[in-house]
């Protein structure tokens, strides 16, 4: 049966039920909820277990970045190994697209979970994620690991 104006009454009933439902507000600065596992925020470098960065200073991420947010400055040493002077990252211009992470052949960077990116000082919007560290040499590392393993076997 349709009663004229019944919809108005029903809407009010729904509204009054809402008064007693659990509130969904998260009072953000005071309480935070855990991020989903796959949340993607600012880029951060990854490290080997012994603390060395995985970055080989190949520069692919720098070339991939559509916003020119990443800048890598390196020096080549006498033994042809590279040293990373600066792995520069402009958080302020980064749009978290993740192309650099996809492009990285050594999984040396990943999308981090740091989402509180607001800054009071604009100068801190540009950071050096890595500074003055030797670039990783995955081949030599693997050889060294194999040698260590072989040495242990023998």
């Amino acid at each position: 049966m349709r009663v004229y104006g019944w919809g108005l009454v029903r809407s009010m009933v729904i509204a009054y039920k809402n008064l007693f439902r659990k509130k969904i507000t998260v009072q953000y600065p005071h309480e935070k909820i855990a991020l989903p596992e796959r949340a993607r925020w600012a880029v951060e470098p990854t490290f080997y277990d012994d603390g060395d960065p995985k970055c080989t200073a190949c520069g692919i991420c720098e070339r991939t970045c559509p916003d020119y947010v990443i800048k890598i400055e390196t020096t080549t040493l006498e033994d042809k190994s590279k040293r990373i002077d600066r792995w520069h990252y402009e958080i302020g211009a980064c749009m978290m697209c993740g192309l650099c992470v996809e492009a990285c052949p050594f999984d040396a960077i990943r999308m981090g979970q740091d989402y509180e990116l607001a800054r009071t000082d604009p100068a801190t919007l540009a950071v050096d994620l890595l500074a003055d560290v030797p670039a990783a040499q995955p081949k030599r590392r693997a050889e060294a690991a194999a040698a260590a393993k072989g040495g242990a076997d023998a």
Partner: protein
Amino acid sequence: MSDWLIAFLRWLAALGLMLTNGVVMILMLRKVLGALHLRLGPMDNGPWGIFQTLFDVLKLFTKEDPTPKAVDKVLFFLAPALVFVPSLAAYIVVPFSETWVVGDFDLGLLFIFAIMSIIPLGILMAGWASNNKWSLVGAMRVVGAQISYEVPLLLAALPVVMMAGSLNMNDIVEAQRSVWFVVNLPAFALFFIAGLIENGQTPFDLIEAESELVGGYATEYASMKFGLLFLSEFSNTFILSAMIVALFFGGWNIGFGLDTPAALAPAIFMLKTYIGIFIIMTIRGTMPRVRVDKLLALGWKFLLPASIAWTMVTALVVKLGSGMIGGGQ
């Protein structure tokens, strides 16, 4: 004490009540709307954010008050006062208890209607003086709605007057000692709907219509001039609720023929009034807005004839069954 001093103190009390009401009701509105949306509303200042509106008022006081170049300066300054003063004056006859009333007029009910019908003039002044088409459209809507709904509102209050046999607010409340006049349900419904429209509450809030008209007639106002317009709006809601309580829900009476302790009467009246405000606010948080033509059609084609018809029916019933309904005389 001299009569003048007493009158002044009573006026001061009314002003204090109005300001307190404004602050409390704005917080209440934000909390109630929040609860309806499953939100919490303001929570940061004080426990449960109870000081939020206090700080808002302080902010309004300290804000810069720019006057736009193109406005009509005299009217622009006069309008908030002309909107505010009738709102304050309406408190004069609100019967908080048998003795707690600023001025106990014999024509109290008529006084409220008379003084409240000045408000559209102030609003039209504000809209016209702002020299802004949105303000003017908002103001025209207010005036259109309020003037056309004054008639059904008055006619919906008439049955109560007939049943009580008086226009004095306290006499009307007194007459509801045993039976509240809400038994005259159609009159209550008509009064409530017409009151919501008169008040510019949500199903009929074309006046403000934030999403269409920026801020309605208050668009060009800032600082405390805006505060006065805003405060008067909230105070009108209080007056509407107080009128509904006094006319239909027994005012400061407990009801059922029980004696009301004089000390409790104002508290009971305020409680009832705030329950009314709460219901008005929940309606505001639930209903969508009606269109202007539908609003006016509802007024002229339904509310006006219905209230005239119901006034006649009540008059007949009161005359025939004199003494049977609500102690009619």
